[in-house]
């Protein structure tokens, strides 16, 4: 998926379908900004992101320990130019294509105990709040970054839950969960159906939405209920109108975006060979393909990819088919620990593949550079440092976003551990991203109350 976007645009222009697409890019202004958040379930162990250099610099008694919040220094330790790919699970940053080592940053030692930890902190991870009590970062940023993109945010993932859509990770606000599509085939149809259907299908969809829209309008014209009930129908009408508008927008973009699309679900080996229950990593890779196409095609500027964070007993074939939960509970068995690291490594590999696609695609609209320069990719867990986490350490990987001001120059940063005066929090990381993505007033993201340590972004990363 490394088609030159500029070439794509030229081709599209020749086809006479450029205007809506080109317009969407221009509408973002001189500095396009994008956000990709990848969330891994069951924790990311700090040792997996610990580079050889940082290990030496920290000193202390790390040894074979996977978690070592007690050994972090009393002041933030930042190592620019660290070879982060020497960390056990970060080799994909160096391997598999153009090196991303010096376009990345690793962060260790951030806490977020307000989330409670445990198997999963639910929406707490991305909101820095008690589960279910506040908006998640993606939902806060999506309207700010949407520009003219058809979708303000695309949320994809995998889950052990037997439902097509899950609600445990993202939220528009207190008790307002945002759904994540956890079935790639459904996600493909949902996002690309309008692009693929051709003129006939597009006409049929437009007719359908027009019919439904007329029906709701007629219902509203004679509606006898009160304003709250009326609002339910008005929201439905608004959804239909938005879809109708998007239908036209997508149709205008179809010729340009269609070449970027991944294989259809029926012919995508990631799905046809995933088994039942499916190999979560294969499904996740299929979701990454969809996300990559959506970003390259300008369908959205915000993506969440949630790997098992809403239903975390996902299964992988790489370890013989044992579910992630059983894998975790046998973590002291060497083979299980190897498999857990392989899963995290696979997540990094998928992040790297996405980043390389963006790196290979020049930015348009006068911003210069590549799409990766204007895209911040964050890989983190949904509960902290381990399967039954205490939420005291949230190892995170940032890739890209150089043009946004992020210090993704290959550095590793270790913050003082939880309980120390200079410990910093995941909320500070989101403040950092908020500033980089254009909201320079975002200094207190999160709902941590008295648990908040310090406002503002992290100077080590911005």
């Amino acid at each position: 998926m490394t088609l030159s976007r500029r070439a794509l645009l030229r081709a599209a222009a020749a086809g006479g379908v450029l205007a809506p697409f080109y317009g969407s890019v221009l509408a973002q202004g001189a500095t396009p900004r994008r956000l990709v958040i990848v969330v891994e379930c069951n924790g990311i162990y700090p040792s997996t992101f610990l580079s050889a250099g940082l290990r030496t610099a920290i000193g202390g008694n790390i040894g074979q320990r996977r978690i070592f919040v007690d050994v972090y220094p009393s002041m933030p330790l930042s190592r620019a130019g660290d070879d982060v790919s020497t960390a056990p699970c970060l080799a994909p940053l160096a391997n598999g294509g153009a090196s991303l080592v010096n376009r990345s940053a690793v962060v260790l030692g951030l806490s977020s105990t307000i989330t409670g930890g445990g198997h999963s902190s639910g929406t707490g991870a991305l909101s820095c709040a008690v589960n279910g009590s506040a908006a998640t970062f993606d939902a806060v940023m999506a309207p700010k970054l949407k520009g003219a993109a058809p979708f303000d945010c695309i949320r994809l993932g995998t889950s052990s839950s037997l439902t097509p859509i899950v609600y445990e990770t993202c939220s528009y606000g207190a008790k307002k969960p945002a759904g994540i599509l956890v079935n790639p085939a459904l996600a493909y149809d949902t996002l690309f159906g309008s692009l693929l259907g051709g003129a006939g299908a597009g006409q049929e969809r437009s007719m359908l939405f027009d019919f439904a829209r007329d029906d709701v309008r007629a219902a509203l014209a004679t509606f006898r209920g009160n304003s709250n009930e009326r609002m339910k129908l008005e929201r439905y009408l608004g959804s239909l109108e938005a879809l109708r508008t998007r239908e036209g927008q997508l149709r205008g973009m179809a010729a340009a975006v269609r070449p970027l699309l991944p294989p259809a679900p029926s012919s995508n080996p990631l799905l046809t060979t995933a088994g039942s229950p499916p190999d979560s990593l294969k499904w996740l890779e299929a979701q990454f393909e969809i996300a990559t196409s959506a970003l390259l095609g300008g369908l959205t500027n915000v993506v969440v990819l949630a790997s098992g964070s809403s239903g975390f007993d996902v299964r992988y074939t790489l370890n013989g088919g044992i579910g992630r939960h059983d894998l975790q509970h046998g973590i002291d068995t060497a083979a299980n620990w190897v498999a857990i690291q392989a899963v995290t490594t696979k997540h990094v590999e998928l992040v790297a593949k996405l980043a390389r696609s963006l790196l290979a695609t020049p930015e348009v609209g006068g911003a210069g550079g590549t799409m990766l320069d204007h895209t911040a990719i964050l890989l983190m867990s949904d509960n902290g440092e381990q399967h039954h986490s205490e939420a005291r350490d949230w190892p995170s990987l940032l890739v890209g976003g150089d043009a946004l001001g992020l210090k993704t120059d290959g550095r590793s940063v270790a913050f003082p551990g939880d309980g120390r005066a200079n410990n910093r929090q995941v909320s500070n990381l989101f403040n950092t991203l908020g500033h980089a993505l254009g909201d320079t007033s975002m200094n207190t993201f999160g709902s941590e109350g008295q648990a908040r340590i310090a406002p503002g972004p992290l100077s080590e990363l911005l």
Partner: protein
Amino acid sequence: MACEGTLIGSGGTGGGSIGGTGGGASSEPGDGGDTSSSACRVVSLLQSRCISCHTNPPMNAAPMVLDSLDALRAPSLKVSGETNAQRSIVRLRDAAAPMPPPPERPGTGDEAALLETWVQAGMPDCASPPDGGTDGGAVTPVLEEPNLIPQGELFTCTPGTKSNAPTRVRRLNRWSWTRNVGGPVTRSWTGFSFFDNPFDPSAFEPYGTYATDESVDESMIEITLPIVQAYGETWAGPYTGGNRLELLRLDTTLRCMWQDDAPSQACIRNYGRVLLERGVLYRPPRADELDRLVTFANAVLAQESADAGQDGRTHSLVRIVTAAMMTTGALFREELGAPTDAGRVQLADWELAGQLTYAIGARGPGAVPTWRFPNFSAPIDGHYADVAGAARDGGIRQAAVVDALVRRHFGGTDAMRLDLLQDFGDGDRLRRGEYWLGDGVLTFFREWLGYTRVDSIFKERPEGTSRFDDGDPSGYRAQLSAWGNLMDGYYGEESTLIQQMDDMVARAVVPDTQVLRTLLTTRTFFLAATQNSGFDGNATRYTGQPYGTDAVISNTNAERWRTLPMSERAGVLTHPAWLASHGGNFEDDPSAVHRGKWVREMLLCGYVPPLSQVRVVAQVGPHAADKNARRRLEDATGKAECQGCHGLMNPLGLPFETYNHAGYLRERDHAVDGGWAMPDGTSSLAGMPDPTLNGPVRDAVELSEKLSVSPHVKRCFLRHTFRYFMGRNENRSDACTLAAMEQAYDSNGGSFKAALSALMTSETWTERTQ
């Protein structure tokens, strides 16, 4: 200054939640000092002096939310036994630590006195008018926390009081939508099913019947479309879809739609009418609804190419059905009614019919039955055709008719379990208990008791500390295989743990005698057969272990129904499915908190502040050989600032410590010396809303028996019944209906049917405010 104007915004936009019960009267502050007025002034006080920090979520390091009268009524997180209101009075008068803090002006004596007056008056609501309105006025339903209403007030009927619930439209939920289109509410990983529709109620809804704020967003539409299209295929002919509808084979008037090259207008109109009434709206379509669909159908048929053949016609019919399924009538069911001379709204006949069938059976009246060889899911005239008939002839307004319908569809016995026809084949159905409940009735008990979460809560070593815990660490040990099979039923055809509790509940409820007491005390549990199970191996041989037995159970219901020892189990709260659903991941996890919270909220109708109001790190310490769950919990929550909430939960949860996290009976528990001790389920209850509950409790068996005879618990049970079947919270204006439900329940020997019938023939059921 009116409360509403001050607090809920102006200009008719609504949107606030300060007012507690919503709406807002025109009470003027200082207009005589009645309690309603003082409440409204307290609301003003919150707005002007507190909410800038104590908003939701709190800001500027404020520790709790104080944005409503309910928040003031809530227990203090700081001082056990006090409310936030009482603490606020102290802080308003605290010169050393003034509130509001600098640089704000500190609290005044008048402000503290106002709050004190309100507390002494029993913390009443700011007087609220009816919630409804017909003119699109500024009405925002404010969700009062019902458990903060004194229970006695909810059962004190003032003659002439009318329920103040407004008219509404209710988006269908996932379960009902699936049932309507004839789909099973079970699914596998492979392929899509109708149950993949995205109409799950929002997470904040207490019950799946609530539709407080539910609408349909863009992603829902996109996800629904392919599912709706699959439904459309079933209406394109008798053999076109995967879900065969016998109506399309038998009703010869419909055939012209798929047999004629150019269906006549009469044919199209007839098809549209039948489709809308029997497969989309579950009521006769209004003229304009039918007109629009016919117009759309004509446009679709006109686009068919001459050589499209049968596939082309099927495609056209799918488009027509899809369009019909996207109408407001298909997605939202109405309770809008018609105005009466008394200034009320009387629900229409078909609205009443739908309300009844969705409540009892979780589907619309007259829904077309599906065919599952060799049976049909309902008589050919439709699911709940008798209710539809009562809507047609007006009988739905007669109490005797409604009572008969409730009793007919409530539940019963059937060895064939044809009620499960759409979900399971003969092999599974014939291994179930013979008692059945209507889909909606069973779902009430599932949601009230909350026992269907069991398969989504991981259990580390489910048999831990039980007599079946032999120390074997193997992931293939028999105990774990059996537990796994109880969760997913992968091996054999016997029931899962959830289904076993379904059947236990049904057996307790169907006889309809002292229903609550039976639920809380029955020793009759339904277990899976452990031989001739359809797959005989470890996964099926040891499924009795969570119940405390590894006896061989043969393949008959006489064997599956087991009477468990009186010292070990008593009722639904001692069923492994309930215990595990309200248990942690490890045997020494604080399961007592989950279980105690449930008892407090769902049996005592007490209030526990939600976690969203807690701004402290709440975690138990690490596992340790010398600490059992009780000790870990005490270590973590023993502080005074924790007891504000945990004092409400822990004492009610500790009696369940004789069971582990998965509901197995403990044989031993961790001792303080790191060895083993006898399990301890003792607790001491104090300050219970029913004083007869106070005192020492031996274990969950004794607790269940005490709860089962508590009038307070019975009323709470009826309140939850009201909530589920009405699809909304009760309030004081519902007192006459709640009292009638209680009277019907009591005077009929604890009859749940009688209580339901009282509800479904009440004005609360049939009328709304304008």
